[in-house]
């Protein structure tokens, strides 16, 4: 366990895309939506305003920004993906496919919020995209051969990188070790997936979208690494993390908003 981490994090979370009810007012994101106020207070430890000047960096998680190959590839395909009998998927050029992915991402809450936030502050805004679907949900027939996935996935990532850059977002992809194959999370990380309403106690059922603590551990390490890079080493201070679990209770100097 690193003992001298030089930061703190404040979480502001809510279910689904309900953060869309945030609006800017007097230096803070606030909401008059009672349910959202309650969720913000619950997740942040009592705060119901996101004071922009209080934080050195901002981290968005999901907020509609993600790549779901299952969904995209049920509608469209590129030439690397074999055409099946009765295939109703629309063949798109790589360029058009990327434009489709980019358009989806541009309409996400993350990009909308980034636009608002970027007009208020020049501080880093990081985005951890929605987890890739669990590999157990993979229908080979729907996606064509695995080699094609590499092409499709790289097109999606390029589109996401383009949108993130244009929106002033720093992308933090899930680490490679969480992926079974490109665009799909190892099924082990979907067991006991966490939701805001609490852990699915004792259940191994998965929805293929929500991931567990082990997954969160990997993503947090990537995230902190990125923040450390951006802060030129200020986050990890002298002791980079060694353990398998991240404890966010250490340190107070650099505050981050999730």
């Amino acid at each position: 366990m690193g003992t001298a981490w030089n930061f703190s994090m404040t979480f502001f979370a809510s279910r689904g895309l309900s953060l869309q009810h945030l609006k800017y007012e007097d230096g803070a994101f606030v909401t008059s939506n009672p349910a959202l106020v309650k969720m913000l207070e619950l997740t942040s430890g009592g705060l119901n305003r996101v004071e922009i000047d209080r934080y050195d960096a901002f981290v968005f998680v999901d907020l509609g920004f993600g790549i779901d190959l299952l969904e995209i590839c049920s509608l469209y395909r590129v030439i690397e993906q074999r055409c099946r009998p009765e295939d109703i998927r629309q063949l798109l050029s790589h360029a058009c496919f990327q434009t489709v992915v980019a358009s989806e991402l541009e309409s996400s809450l993350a990009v909308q919020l980034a636009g608002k936030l970027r007009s208020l502050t020049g501080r880093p805004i990081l985005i951890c995209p929605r987890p890739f679907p669990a590999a157990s949900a993979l229908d080979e027939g729907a996606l064509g051969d695995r080699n094609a996935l590499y092409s499709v996935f790289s097109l999606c990532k390029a589109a996401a990188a383009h949108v993130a850059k244009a929106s002033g977002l720093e992308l933090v992809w899930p680490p490679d070790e969480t992926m079974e194959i490109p665009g799909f999370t190892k099924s082990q990380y979907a067991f006991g997936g966490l939701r805001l309403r609490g852990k699915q106690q004792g259940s191994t059922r998965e929805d293929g979208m929500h991931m567990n603590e082990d997954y969160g551990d990997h993503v947090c390490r990537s995230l902190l690494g990125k923040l450390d890079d951006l802060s030129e080493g200020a986050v990890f201070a002298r002791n980079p993390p060694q353990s398998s679990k991240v404890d966010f209770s250490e340190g107070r100097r650099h505050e981050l908003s999730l």
Partner: protein
Amino acid sequence: MNSPYENLSPRNFWRSGVSESHPLTVEDFYRKKFSIDATDKIATAGSCFAQHVSNYLQKNGFSVLDVEPPPAVLSDDVARSFGYKIYSARYGNIYTVRQLLQLMRDAQSGSVDAADVWSKDGRYFDALRPNIEPNGFDSVEEALALRTQHLEKVSGLFRKTNVFIFTLGLTEAWIDKRSGRVFPTAPGTIAGEYNPDIHAFHNFGFNEIHDDFAEFYDLVRRRNPNIKIILTVSPVPLTATASDDHVLLATTYSKSVLRSVAGALAQEYDNIDYFPSYEMIASPWSKGFFYDANMRSVNPGGVASVMRVFFQQHGIGQNASEAGLSESKSPREVRREANRAKKMSRKERRNRRKSDEVSDEDAVCEDFLLEAFAPQ
């Protein structure tokens, strides 16, 4: 003394039909040969003027087919930049009848050829519809795969449409001498490279165009015996000519031939009608009001006037606001607006020239690119 002219309608006389009439208020100018209504499945194609026709039909409740719709998430502008939502399929502008016939033959055979893929700066363009991918394809294979899909869709389109509206645009074209393939743009304009050993200029004549269309019609009718066709001639002059003639003479030749062919086909076939948008916009009748300052681009008022006549005949209420037509706008007001346009300052004209593509109500026209080759 009896005269065969003495009992004719006022529309038969130039004074009453034209001199004392106005394109904005004219009645009984066009008489439809057959009816179309909102239940018909309409397909559109042709030169860029046909895009206006297609837009107006859709806005006024006609059922215009789109067999290659864009991915739903794309905005209209982005979709159009990828060649979607312009015509009933993603074929781009079809300027010549030979191009239309070629498309029909290809759709029936499903054949594609790598020789029809042009390159530029490491990107690849479908030479038969070079404007459908703004930055070209990644590879020849990709261009051909998308073309194969396109041809399947076009084949389906001509099976299911009841009414095909086609705007004849040009007689001039560039041909691959080896294969006889005709292209919508000259090689070297959007992509490819002009090679006089391979590419040849061809100015189609009446017989060629007539016979090409007759063959196209025959091919379509074998699958779709009851299809009706409405022909129009684009009133948009040539941006440039590759003939030895002055561009105005080349334009007159081109439009005259196309108008003659359209008229001849309409006389020969019961299921082919000619709609006179060309005369409304390009004749002395409209005194040039319907052109922009460059005397080439058709302004929105011109398109609206043409479509008003079309909708009047086919009995479907025109969306007046979309058409830019107001009940209160008199011919005098229209003339006043036109005069104002003519008095534009040099700076305004220069700006207008720069935005020609926009002023032509956002039509996607490859031939405009030829302007870039004009001496400065």
